[in-house]
């Protein structure tokens, strides 16, 4: 569960080098190798009516990416990091999966490109596709047009949203390994209002106490590793309440598990992890179920 090698996926327009810089603190937790990936979308070089495959355009785009990667690599090499780079033509999610396997990546970092509602409804988002297909944690960086500066130390005060599943335990494992870069963790559970529909106040309090005890147990696991951890219980819609908790605890990042929901189901019923990845401004680390 060490994060030794990260795959940094960039289209340049939305994920800049400041995001890489913000992750270099992970060196204290074992980060040693950064692999850059730029995927040139097929539509940019092929499938143009009457033009065939545009080799010249491919060369131009490759060289533009190469120049950028050389600059980034020089900066990391000089600090003793190992660096690699891929510039490939194809579909983003597929190329990410290929690079993850080739390089034995521990963490995927992607930037979120905001898309309109209609486009999202008909075309599966690249980010969600990566999250669905990946067996490795995915850290999603968010950018708004006004704010393109990445959080300086995303791992400093993470908020872990837990539903007490095996994936949450998996997340605790990751956090333990990041001890040198973490100052404080807030572990939050969002209770379903239906679960609190008890007949008496005492019963409701009992439910709360039970949840609190479980959160305390998770906090104790981190405290035993020298990480300051605080529990928090919220009630309501998980997506909304997790963001509220993140704001209230001044979190630098949200960490959550992903489910194995299918794409169609996710589109129909919504999913907390896809909401966190796409709609919030917090960097979001999504951890897949243990295999």
């Amino acid at each position: 569960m060490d994060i030794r090698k990260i795959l940094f996926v960039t289209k340049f327009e939305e994920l800049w080098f400041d995001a890489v810089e913000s992750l270099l603190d992970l060196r204290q937790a074992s980060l040693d190798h950064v692999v850059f990936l730029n995927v040139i979308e097929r539509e940019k070089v092929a499938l143009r009516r009457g033009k065939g495959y545009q080799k010249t355009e491919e060369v131009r785009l490759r060289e533009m990416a190469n120049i950028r990667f050389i600059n980034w690599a020089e900066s990391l090499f000089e600090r003793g990091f190992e660096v690699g780079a891929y510039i490939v033509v194809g579909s983003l999610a597929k190329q990410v999966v290929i690079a993850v396997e080739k390089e034995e990546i521990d963490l995927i970092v992607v930037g979120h490109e905001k898309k309109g509602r209609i486009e999202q409804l008909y075309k599966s988002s690249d980010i969600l596709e990566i999250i669905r297909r990946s067996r490795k944690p995915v850290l999603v960086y968010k950018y708004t047009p006004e704010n393109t500066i990445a959080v300086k130390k995303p791992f400093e005060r993470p908020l872990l949203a837990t539903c007490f599943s095996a994936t949450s335990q998996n997340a605790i494992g990751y956090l333990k390994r990041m001890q040198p870069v973490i100052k404080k963790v807030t572990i939050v559970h969002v209770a379903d209002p239906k679960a609190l529909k008890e007949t008496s106040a005492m019963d409701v309090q009992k439910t709360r106490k039970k949840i609190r005890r479980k959160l305390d147990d998770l906090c104790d696991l981190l405290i035993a590793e020298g990480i300051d951890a605080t529990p928090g219980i919220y009630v309501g819609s998980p997506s909304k309440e997790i963001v509220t908790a993140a704001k209230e605890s001044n979190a630098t990042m949200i960490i959550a598990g992903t489910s194995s929901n299918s794409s169609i189901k996710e589109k129909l019923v919504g999913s907390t992890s896809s909401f966190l990845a796409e709609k919030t401004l917090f960097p979001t680390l999504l951890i897949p179920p243990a295999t």
Partner: protein
Amino acid sequence: MNKKVLVVDDDPDVRLFNVTVVEENGFIPIEASNGEEGLKLLKEEKPDLVILDVLMPRQSGIRLYRELKTDKSLKNIHVILLSGIAKKTFLRSQKALTEFGGESVPEPEIYLEKPVEPEELSAAINQYIG
């Protein structure tokens, strides 16, 4: 017997260029597309010279160069660094790795920045194994 030159570069076009120059000079080229593959071939083939790129998948030329220069059976193999990464960066990175507890390695004998002319590469190759 003809001498062997190992060409390590992830870019197939650059590999083709280097291989052609090696062949034109009467040597036998061996190809690898990343540092890991390069190290494997170094051990198996024991070439007389390596033409090494720096920024590559799996393992960079920086790490491969360290492995080569700290291995008793490989350290006498000549190396030509051929990269888009500046020589200054290469030297600083080796210094940083030494400071992190690694063994000190000698500076590369020849460091060429991409792109090179065929004559320039030919001259560098022949300086060692011609």
